[in-house]
């Protein structure tokens, strides 16, 4: 896995350090301060910051604009791009636009179904799917060509990532699915939030059996619970999420005023255990609307200070 881009995230992963990424959701309005504030809370504790792309299909400031905002602050953004809203012309065009601002990381996703959001009656595009988007970015970068075959002047240099959900069923399809994404061009993976560590470790066994851990950098996804209610919600209402009963119970058995702290404890313990899993090359800490807790989590897990590369 030799370096192909100017991505700081790629450099850190190539150096053998555990990488740390986090994410910020853009605001439902035009105020850039919303992004700047969130980024300032976490910037010294992470190597790169994902900007979500209209997550849960709720209309927000576009990921690209928010990523540019991070670039202006001298930070390292990961442009999330879903295939739900844009056809292949718009996707390629946005990739060029992002690259023109030297945005060096991109995460290729299909995106939540639009029925979850504020435009439930909207068209879902999916002209390409996440797999085809991965192939597209790699083609643009490695061959310097558009999907249609024409040459790109100054091709984009993106470090290309994808998501993986080790927990959705059928479980046995999940390792082959990762293999397909790697073959399509994924160089790093950010996983779904991990609460069922046993199952994740079983998935990683399958990943190692096929040698995929040597072909792709896997960043384990974690999200701290703010409350027992959130744990129950994640368990019951968020599709593809696997929250074991004992984790929900641990949160529920904690007095209300201490639940937030307990949620952080669970997150820290998870990272500690996952650090020992062969093939885990870093962490993606998704503290949803709770960015101020990221520094503490990173410090407590010994991942601070971040390496200079």
């Amino acid at each position, binding site marked *: 896995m030799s370096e192909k881009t100017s991505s700081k995230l790629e450099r850190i992963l190539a150096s053998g350090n555990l990488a740390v990424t986090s994410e910020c959701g853009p605001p439902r309005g035009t105020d850039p301060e919303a992004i700047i504030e969130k980024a300032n809370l976490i910037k010294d504790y992470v190597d790169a910051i994902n900007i979500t792309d209209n997550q849960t299909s709720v209309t927000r400031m576009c990921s690209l604009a928010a990523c540019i905002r991070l670039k202006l602050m001298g930070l390292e953004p990961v442009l999330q791009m879903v295939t*739900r809203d844009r056809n*292949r012309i718009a996707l390629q065009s946005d990739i060029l636009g992002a690259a023109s601002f030297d945005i060096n990381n991109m995460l290729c996703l*299909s995106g*939540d*179904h639009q*029925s*979850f959001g504020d435009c439930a009656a909207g068209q*879902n595009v*999916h*002209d*390409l*799917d*996440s*797999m*085809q988007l991965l*192939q*597209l970015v790699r083609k643009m970068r490695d061959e310097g060509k558009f*999907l249609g075959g024409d040459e790109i002047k100054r091709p984009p240099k993106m470090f290309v990532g994808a*998501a*993986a*959900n080790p927990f*959705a*069923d*059928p479980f046995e*399809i999940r390792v*082959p*699915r990762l*293999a*397909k994404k790697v*073959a*399509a061009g994924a160089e790093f993976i950010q996983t*779904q939030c991990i609460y069922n560590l046993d199952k994740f470790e079983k998935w990683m066994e399958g990943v190692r059996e096929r040698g995929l851990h040597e072909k792709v950098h896997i960043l384990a996804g974690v999200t701290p619970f703010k409350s027992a209610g959130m744990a129950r919600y994640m368990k019951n209402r968020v*599709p*593809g999420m696997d929250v074991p009963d004992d984790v929900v119970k641990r949160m529920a058995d904690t007095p209300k005023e201490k639940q937030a702290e307990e949620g952080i404890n669970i997150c820290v313990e998870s990272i500690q255990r996952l650090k020992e899993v062969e093939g885990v090359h870093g962490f993606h800490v998704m503290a949803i609307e709770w960015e101020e807790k990221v520094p503490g989590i990173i410090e407590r897990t010994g991942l601070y200070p971040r390496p200079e590369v």
Partner: protein
Amino acid sequence: MIRSITQQKPLEEIDELLKGLGRVFLIGCGTCTTLTHTGGEPELSTMRENLTGVGKLVTGQVVVPVACDNLTGEIIKDYGGQIDQANVLLVMSCAFGVQTIASQLKKMVVPALNTMFIGKETGMGRFNEICTQCGTCIIGETGGICPVTSCHKGLVNGPCGGTDKGKCEIDSNRDCAWTLIYNRMKELGRLDSIKKFQKPRNHHGEPMPGRVDLTEKTQEATAK
């Protein structure tokens, strides 16, 4: 057998579409909308009552055998007098029928139904979309199950991360198409086939509006 699946528009919308048009001639269809109970004899009678109730004059009604057939124009000629008296035709067929009628009679047409999809009756009164007619069929590699139609995101390279106990993330009553495909291919011992990359779809296979002209090739061949 495939059918054009329709649903009646809300009465308020029909009223709005008929605003200022007091004399209405009703047309139903003896094929698809009779089967789906949206445009057969009973539905026409109910519609007639509704219209009369809001002060419209229904000059006549007919259920034609196949509204989308070109013979429809001929059949309707028998009702010439009643049609002449009306200032609008309210058509309770699918949009194929509405457009056929519109092209054959010089008369304002209003559809009473929304055409939802081309589907199949899979149980009493239950209709499912099986094919979206995308123009680039891949079901030879997915065990005869169409992900373009059955996956709510139309994903052709495998499932998203939202599969939940074999059901779709958007509706726990709907099967995840890719779980069905996986199970079918496993049964057939052909799991390798879903590893294949499906390329970006050629939407040009279904240019809007779709058109296939079998005579074009013959003409080309003759020209050579």
